[in-house]
């Protein structure tokens, strides 16, 4: 069993090598999108590698996804937010997302139309924050993933249900159509700043568990975030 995985890893790294060699002939393609300092250490390649899927789950997932995107959008990449309802735009600005290069797309929730929309967005946008509809078929998901890899975009998956906890809390049990390369599972430990009527919400401690198929060893971080 262990041998198998090792073999796979070597295979993958060879593939990666090939990809980078191909890309060396086309110097205008940046292989990695930059991320801000405070989240860089969470990611295995200290950046968002193009063609990959990152899942931000848990109760601080959306704000984490926004801060992952911030530096790249400031440097000229475009961000598409697909199917994420109720996104707080003010929060996006505070995380540093350049709103002038952000597009919000509201596709229908049926499997086929959702995947067509995401595929169209992948064509021209570097970064996507998406909420995956529950009924997405595995076939459509695979097609989207292939397109993502060939177009060298980065997709960040977030949960869209904060108040219906049955789904978002048992993130590991749910059927996941996309096989994420990096999974950042967040859990708020405590909020600071408010005290029985005084103050205002300022910081929170978040436990972030990093796993996924591109992560060698599962790691846990305890981070204090401004939101």
């Amino acid at each position, binding site marked *: 069993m262990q041998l198998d995985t090792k073999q796979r890893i070597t295979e993958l790294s060879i593939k990666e090598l090939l990809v980078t060699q191909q890309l060396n002939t086309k110097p205008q393609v940046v292989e990695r999108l930059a991320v801000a300092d405070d989240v860089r250490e969470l990611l295995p390649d200290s950046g968002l590698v193009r063609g990959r899927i990152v899942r931000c789950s848990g*109760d601080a997932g959306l*704000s984490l996804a926004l801060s992952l995107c911030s530096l790249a959008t400031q440097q000229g990449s475009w961000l598409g937010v697909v199917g994420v309802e109720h996104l707080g735009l*003010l929060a996006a600005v505070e995380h540093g997302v350049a709103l002038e290069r952000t*597009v919000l797309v*509201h596709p229908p929730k049926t499997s086929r139309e959702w995947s067509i929309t995401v595929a169209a967005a992948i064509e021209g946008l570097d970064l996507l924050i998406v909420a995956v509809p529950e009924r997405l078929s595995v076939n459509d998901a695979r097609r989207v993933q292939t397109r993502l890899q060939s177009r060298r975009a980065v997709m960040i998956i977030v949960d869209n249900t904060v108040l219906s906890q049955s789904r978002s809390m048992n993130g590991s049990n749910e059927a996941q159509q996309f096989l994420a390369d990096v999974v950042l599972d967040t859990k708020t430990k405590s909020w600071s700043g408010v005290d029985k009527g005084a103050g205002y919400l300022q910081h929170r401690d978040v436990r972030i568990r990093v796993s996924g198929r591109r992560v060698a060893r599962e790691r846990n971080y305890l981070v204090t975030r401004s*939101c």
Partner: protein
Amino acid sequence: MRTPKRLAVLRCLDWSAVVAAKNSTTPCAVIHAQRVISRTPAAMRYGVQVGMRRRHAQALCPDIEIVAHQPSRDRTAFDAVVRVVNELVPLIEVSEPGLIVFAARGPSRYMGGDGPMASKIVEALKTSVADSRLAALLVGVGVADSRLAAQIASHASAMASSSANLFVPYVVEPDKTNEWLAPQSVRVLGEFASINRETISLLERLGLNTLHDVCALSESVLAGRFGELGVELHRLSRGDEQYPLAVVPHPPEHLCIEKFDEPVSDQQIIINSVQRMAVAFTEYYSVHGSVCVRIVISFESESGKRSERLWYRPQGLTTSAIIENAKWQLEAWLASQLAGDISGDPESHALENYALENYALENHGLVRVQLIADEVRTDTAQQLRLWGGSTQTDETATQAIGRLSELLGSSAVQVAKWQGGRDVLDSYELVSATHAQTIGSASSHEQISAQKWRGALPNPSPSVVYSEPIQVQINDQFGKLLSVSARHELSASPVSVIIGSTHYKVNSWAGPWPVEERWWDSARSRRLVRLQLVCEKITADSALQILAMLAILEHGEWTVAAIYS
């Protein structure tokens, strides 16, 4: 001196509400961003006004039917009206659903004067549009020398028709437009000429209450104070047209033609070719430093039938706007062709199970598509980059956005625009990407003004904001609903929050922070109290979940407006 051009405006008052209502007598309001943007005459009788908050409208009229804003519904329904008017007047301009503009001189002379012409058109509308919902529709026709005056006149005509219960056209005599506009309040500029609210309020504070006051100042003074906008204000108030409608078709400056060797019957292929043409078209003008504001799109079918329509956008037509207009026109035309076929052919009942659109296209394959520039002006304020053009990424992104709007309709693809406000929902407005003027570049003005308002919530802001706040119960330790006194003090400490059937225990809270907005305006005033709550809950798998939320008390009801996710 230029001879003034007569313009006629046909206005269907509150079109979107009338179309959205179930029948002509139900009170109905169309809501966009929690505000009433249109309401039926029945709702008007209850005192429901445009700009009111949804709750306020419901308080005035409890049975009111609330419908979400849906531009495509308005447009499809409006095609019936466009078709009828187009039979009487050859070249018309559809600025938005519910509003038609056309040159009045020719039609008036043919039908014996402005008044009879207007009556004739309205009569034709009443007889040939067979839709029961439209029985309550108020139609007004205004004729004047400028677009603004004709718009105001059409509104006046619609209002007069409703009170007199029969159609009354409103005609401003030729060469009298200037005098007629003079006593109008400057607010009409906001209502009919899309001048923004801040400018209007500034004019009022400067003591310029009527258009006469604005007109009395010299143009150079206004230009010195407001720049290009000042010149525009002066022009509007004296009743001039910047670009008069062309009555006689002049030779086109630029036209794109695509001829198909074989009749094309796939709608997607036609739209694709329009897309190619539109890109070349806008590129041609941007190279010459100008922008096309009016365009004629024309389709010609194999059987020699033609569909020609005029499209106008004062800010200039972008590629995506051209595509969208072409799509609208093509769909409407196909539908009308089909209707013609069915009525002319008694055996066509067999068609019922047949895909209607395909039928229309198979019998009327297109052989020619044309885009003709009708009106071009210099491009004034849309220069984006210093170093010539945008980057490669911007270009591909713009293309993708165009494709997305084509797939989903323009209202489903949005970009954010700063508008300011104390509410977390209000500070950015979402505008459809096709209507956004400058995608991909924040104007310097926007960067300066995008600062928090006094009284807005402190940073950090919530990342999940509900457009429809969720009803909750917030209780004190005795299970009594929490209230806030007139001095903004909580009746007790909050202890539990109930959302649906889930109970949360309150750990800590901050607030209450009161907001009292626009107390001088009964329709738009708001009074509310905000509270930040940190709650916890034990989930089924005995894990502790901590949730920070923003609760709002308004009209005695607690709601959750946002979650710090």
